[in-house]
Each structure stands twice: as C-alpha cells, then as structure tokens.
C-alpha cells in the first residue's frame, strides 16, 4: 500500500480507520477477537490502571493517578446528584461505567493508529438503547401510569396539550437515536477530517504546490487534534449528562 501511494500520488481512505476486522484469521463471528475487542480491552486495562492500581494506596494526600480518579469520581457523582437529585445517586455506578467507558474509548481513539470504538453507531446505539429501556422501565416502575404525565404538559393550555403530547412522545422516542448518533457522529467526523488532512500532508512529494499545502494541512491536523481532545471529553460528558437528565425524568416525571 505504501509503495503504491508513493508511486501513484495521494490516497484518501478517511473511513478505513473505522473498519472492523478480525485480528486472527478471516472469519468474523460475534465472538471472534477483532480490533473492537482489542481496543475495548485496552480501555478496560486503562480503567484498571487508573481506578484500581491508581487508588491502591488510598492516600489521604493523593498522587497523580489517584487525583485523576478522585476527580472523575467527584465530577460524575456531582453531576448525578445535581441533575437527578438525591434518589438518583444509587444509579451512579451505572452512569459512571458509561462515562468511563466512553471517555476512555474517545481518548484512546485519538492515539495514532488506534481504533475508536465509540465512533460506531452499533456501540453507541446499544448504550443509548440500554439507557432508554432502563429509564422507561424505571419510570413506569417508580411512578406507574403517572409516568405518562411526562407527555401531558399540564402547564400548557388545554387545547394545546394533545398536540404537545404527540410532540413530546416523538421526542421521547427520538432520544436514543440522537443520544447515540451524537456521540458516534462526533467521533467519526473528527477522525475522518483529521484523516483527510493527513492525506493532503504528503502533497509536497508530488507537486510544488505542496510547499504551501503540506504545512497548512499539518497545521490543520494539529488544530483538529486539539479540538478532538476537547470533543472526546465533551461527548463523554454530554452522553453522561443526558443519561442523568433522562433518569431524572424517570424519577420525577412531574418536572
């Protein structure tokens, strides 16, 4: 591939980085070890290093790793408590698991050559649907039919309420879609753009115009990379806080 590139000019495969494939052999079954498995396992290892080994000393004055672990804990805990109220705190471990998985996948995906598991709708949709089902079942279990009050906007004029109910119902069912596509789309778009700029970078080898284009594209890669670091965190945050918001609706549909 490399030889071909040099011989023939610029190559663009911005989507190649998202390909899922088995690491051993050719057969792809549900249980075969793929690059998805590899990078999810790396995420798990990172979580173990940071949250288990990093906190092993239980220092009163924390070191670097323990500080980060405490920071993440405090950040998500406060988010859950602030958004869902005190009775939402018991779901904190689930939400924290989601946050940690997404954050680590996003950041690991930024390593050159890495595979970004969260750039796949299959992955984000499963998480979003899990949240959706959990929240819906919890809503009915906690509030019974009062949960339907979520769709009956009692503060609106009576005539408008049925229309609003339809809109609310649609927006409720669109939740898992937007929830999952927001994350996957953000991760995919950023990585693809970086890859496109990266494909322009070797232009200097083929054309004199490359003297202008190559530095610009390298600059653009750096800028995009910085933005992607921000996006990696923000998308993890957004997914988590939306989960909290949905959970709050399930616990207190009156709001």
């Amino acid at each position, binding site marked *: 591939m490399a030889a071909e590139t040099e011989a*023939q*000019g*610029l*190559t*663009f*495969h*911005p*989507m*190649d980085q*998202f*390909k*899922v494939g088995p690491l051993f052999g050719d057969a*792809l079954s*549900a*249980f*075969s070890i*793929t690059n*998805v*498995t590899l990078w*999810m*396992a790396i*995420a*798990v290892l990172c*979580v*173990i290093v940071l*949250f*288990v080994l990093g*906190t092993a000393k*239980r*220092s*009163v004055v*924390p070191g670097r790793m323990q500080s980060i*672990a*405490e920071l993440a*804990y*405090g950040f998500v805990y406060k988010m859950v408590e602030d958004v869902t109220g005190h009775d939402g705190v018991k779901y*904190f*471990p*689930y939400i*924290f*698991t*989601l946050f*940690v*998985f997404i954050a680590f996948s996003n950041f690991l995906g930024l390593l050159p050559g890495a595979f970004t*598991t969260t*750039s*796949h*709708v*299959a*992955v984000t949709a*499963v*998480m979003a649907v899990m949240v959706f089902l959990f929240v819906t079942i919890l809503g009915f279990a906690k509030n019974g039919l009062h949960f339907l009050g979520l769709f009956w906007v009692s503060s609106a004029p009576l005539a408008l309420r049925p229309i609003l109910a339809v809109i609310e119902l649609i927006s409720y069912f669109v939740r898992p879609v937007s929830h999952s596509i927001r994350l996957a789309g953000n991760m995919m778009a950023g990585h693809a753009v970086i890859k*496109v700029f990266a*494909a*322009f970078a070797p232009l200097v080898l*083929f*054309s004199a*115009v*490359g003297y202008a*284009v190559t530095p610009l594209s390298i600059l653009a890669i750096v800028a995009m990379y910085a933005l992607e670091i921000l996006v990696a965190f923000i998308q993890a945050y957004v997914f988590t806080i939306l989960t909290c918001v949905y959970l709050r609706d399930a616990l207190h549909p009156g709001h």
Partner: protein
Amino acid sequence: MANTTTTATDVAEGTAEAVGHAADAAGHAAESAGMPQLDFSTFPNQIFWLLVTLVVLYFILAKIALPRLAGILADRQGRITSDLEMAQKLKDQAQEAEKAYQQALIDARSEAGKIVSAARAEIQADLDKATAKADAEIAARAAESAKRIDEIRAGAVASVSEVAKDTAEAIVAALGGKADAKSVAAAVAARMKG
C-alpha cells in the same frame, strides 16, 4: 472494500487537480465503500464485545474502584473534620493557657505590690524606731548637757562667792582691818543675793 485509491495520475497537473481528486475520493469512499459504521455484519461482534466490556467495567468499578474512592473521600473528609476539631481544641487550650498566664501575671503583680508595700511598711517601722531612738538619745544628751551646764553654772557661782570672799578679805586686810571670816562670808552672801 473501502480502499478507494485516488491517483493523481499527472503530478505536474498540480494541486487543483489533486484537491479535486481528493474531494472526489472522500465523497466516493463514503458512497461506494459505505461507512464501516453501517456494515451490519460487524454489529453482532461489536455488540457482544461492548456488553462484555461494560459488564467487566461495571464490576471493576462498582465492586472495587467506587467503594474504594468513596472510602478515600470519606476518610479525607473525616480527617479534615477531625483535624479542624483538633485545631479548635488546641486553639481553645491555647486561649485558656493565655488566660491562665494573664491571671498569673495579674496575681504576680498584686503579690509584688503586696510585698513592696509590706517592705515599705517594715522599712517605715524601722525608720520610725530608729528616729525615735535617735530622738530619745538626743533628748538624753540634751538633758545631760543641761545638767552639766547647771553644774558648771553652780560651780561658777560658788567660785564667784569664793573669789568675792577672798577679795573682800584681802581688801579688808589691805585697809588694815582684821577680817572676820564669818562676817565677810555673810556680807558676800548678802551681796550675792542682792
């Protein structure tokens, strides 16, 4: 499958063409190869491993990491609270000690005042005694002196009468008379009285 290779066939044609090709290729890749995200044959694999990962992560976090972190944070909070309490206690103790010190200072000052006034009174008493003694001595000496003056005076009077007698006798003898000692004495005494 997604290997849509764009070749800038003529390098000399320059960037405009290369950029055009690039844009084509980017669009082309998404269209013809399709996004790997929409390759449904990979879904079961991804979902399976995602669920495995989430379950593993959940157990690592919920059973080990989160209780430990909660413990660490609670410990720290407890430590901070107890340290603050301890600091308050020590502060109170320090204040108490300062109060005691001030009290001791006041006591010592009043004690010192007492001692000073006692000493002053003692000195005054000694002084009074000494003054009285000195006065008494002075009085005694004065009395003695007066007595001696009286004696001297008496002695002087006696001498005067003697001298007067002797002088009178001598005068009488010079006049050719024979002085009767008794009468001379009487005459001198009479004169001396007058």
